[in-house]
């Protein structure tokens, strides 16, 4: 039973971390130009997301 007190929060915490990072990327307009982002990786200069 004691294992649950570690494992369940860890499992849910990982899920929450994923959810939070998705929300952050959404907030940061990272899905505005998916095709463009795929091409920009080939540019030489540093050209991070806005």
């Amino acid at each position, binding site marked *: *039973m004691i294992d*649950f007190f570690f494992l*369940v929060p860890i*499992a*849910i915490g990982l*899920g*929450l971390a*994923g*959810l939070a990072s*998705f*929300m952050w990327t*959404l907030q940061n307009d990272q*899905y*505005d*130009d*998916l*095709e*463009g982002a*795929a*091409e*920009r990786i*080939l*540019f030489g200069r540093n050209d991070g997301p*806005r």
Partner: protein
Amino acid sequence: MSCCAPGAELDLHQPGARDDEVLLASRRLHDGLWQTDLSVPDIHCGGCLHTIETVLNKLGGVASARANLSARRTTVLWRGDTPPPMIPALEAAGFPAHLYEPATNEKDVVLSELLRALAVAGFAASNIMLLSVSVWSGAEAATRDLFHWISALIALPALAYSGRIFFLSAWRSLRHGRTNMDVPISVGVLLTFGMSLYETIHHGPYAYFDAAVSLLFFLLIGRTLDHVMRERARQAVSGLARLSPRGALVKRNDGSQSYLPVDEIEPGMTILLAAGERVPVDARVVRGTSELDLSLVSGESAPRVASEGTVLQAGVLNLNAPLTVVATAAAKGSFLAEMVRMMEAAEAGRSSYRRIADRAAQLYAPLVHSFALLTFAGWMIAGRDAHFAITAAIAVLIVTCPCALGLAVPMVHVVAARRLFEKGIMIKDGGALERLAGVNAVVFDKTGTLTSAQPRLTVQGKPDADVLALAAAMAAHSRHPYSQAVARLGCCPHTLTFDAVSEVPGNGIEARRGNDVYRLGRPDWTIANRRLASAEFNATVALSVNGDIQVCFGLDDQLRAGAEEAVAELRRLGAFTEILSGDSDARVRKLAQRLGLTSVANARPADKIRHVEALKQAGNKVLMVGDGLNDAPALRAADVSMAPASASDIGRNAADLVFLRDSLQAVPEAMIVSRAAATLVRQNFALAVVYNVIAIPLAVAGAVNPLLAAIAMSLSSLTVVANALRLGPARQASTASAPAVPEEAPLLLGALK
């Protein structure tokens, strides 16, 4: 495009937006920074992004430039009083650009809301499912209770957050005394959650948190995809160049000039209208002679001469010489505004179409809810305790699964919209797809719809190459669209040099060489001998030497690509097809005979509405295909409507579907896809019914447990989605006769017409 006579298309190109117009379309941000959005249809690779950003960043005043490959747009931030020459710079780099509407450029809030709701539902569904699997695999007593409690804790905020999209919509429709699909969904989800919570509190063995949350998750997937497809179509349409002017150069009494937005132009103001500009409001010419292109306004394909006193309707394109006009009406009293009013009136007359999903919901919700009620009553009468009766009743609600029903329609529509998108056809909403499937009468506008958006100038007769070269050499001296077309007709460089060349506005070009006078222009001006055959006076442009005719050029109604095939295909699909045009009888009849269609000519906008209404009254489902301002009310009046990308702004907005490629084949193609989609929707409903027929007796008997419910739900959703995916490649066999279309959707470039 092949044609019997050699010809060249007129390049009716609007000049690049002036600085004032750029300023009007820009948004002021903080500390002196301006943002301008440009639509750049030619962006198609990473290299393009790089070039565009480099070119723009080099311009003085540009703070930053960011190109977007998916939306084919560029956002430029700049400082200063006048905008940097962004459009010319891009044009020079090989990327024709035009201003993008700031009003439609707000960030898509609905999409990010849907995505957030989807993410939350996805997170909750996966975590609850994890716990549920442990319960199903045999967690007992305290462990099970603990897992149920954790599930409840995750489910509650997730339902509140993700479910609100459905709850709000259900509440809105209930408040208006209607039901839609969201009502049974909301009732089902809320009751399921309530019962599960009760079970959890009372240490019950079964809780359905996973069912409630994964139901939301599946439905949100369908809804988000649906929204993305529609948004993509909307963006592609709004990325097209705007054809109506944003403003006009107004000359004040004190002689100063200023660029005013259309809304601020009042009757009596003097407007300077350059060649290539559209008339902003209804006006009267006070100075200058020019030719006008009325094709978008009235459907007339032949240009008309305007001189002092000519009354102009808003939206008319001034072709070759500057005009000074006086506004006779404000924007809201103009021809354009009148069309908008007619559209609204037509809209009101459009019988309110109920989407098939809503009609299904209307049947489904009462049926399922009374089933649940009967189950409850039945078990109570049979003497079982209230808890068992309620559990069975709610199980009925869960397994009848609005899930499959909620996905049945949107999934098919998403797939269909995707197919249409690949064919360059943008559809604005799923309802249009349903209406299109039932169409049995197709009404075409002529100018710009059945005929090509750009008129063609063709050579009449068989002149010597030398004569053509002479015409081309003269035409090279003018920027008039006819001249440019003539210039392109000349095959070989002409060695003639003229002593003097002058352009006579409204008439043509006059050149002198020695004692010879060459004239290229209006036939009645160029040709001295008045006893010529009338055919030659029908010509649009003629070349003469000392008054003797050399060659004539005529304006030809060039059939839009694929028009004949499209008409044949529509006939095969069993649709009655006809032409409804505002152009003159002779021209319309000529085209109608060529295509073998019936026709109505000289139709004013009100006549068009009446004609469409009459067709509808006779019990037909009417598809209107048109492009002009004058078609817009009829587009609204018809059951469903299509417009080419070259259509007027108002026509594009009025139409339910917009096709970006040149070919008219888009019309039968859209109908084929919509009919296939309608079949699949019916199949999906049938699947949902079959599934319910099996599941409901089990639930009524009280034999359903959470594991069974979860399996049933996933299975039914998957079948429906898989069935929807069948719409596609297999169906393309029926349109195999269509000519090969380019892979890349050629977004219509710039301001044609």
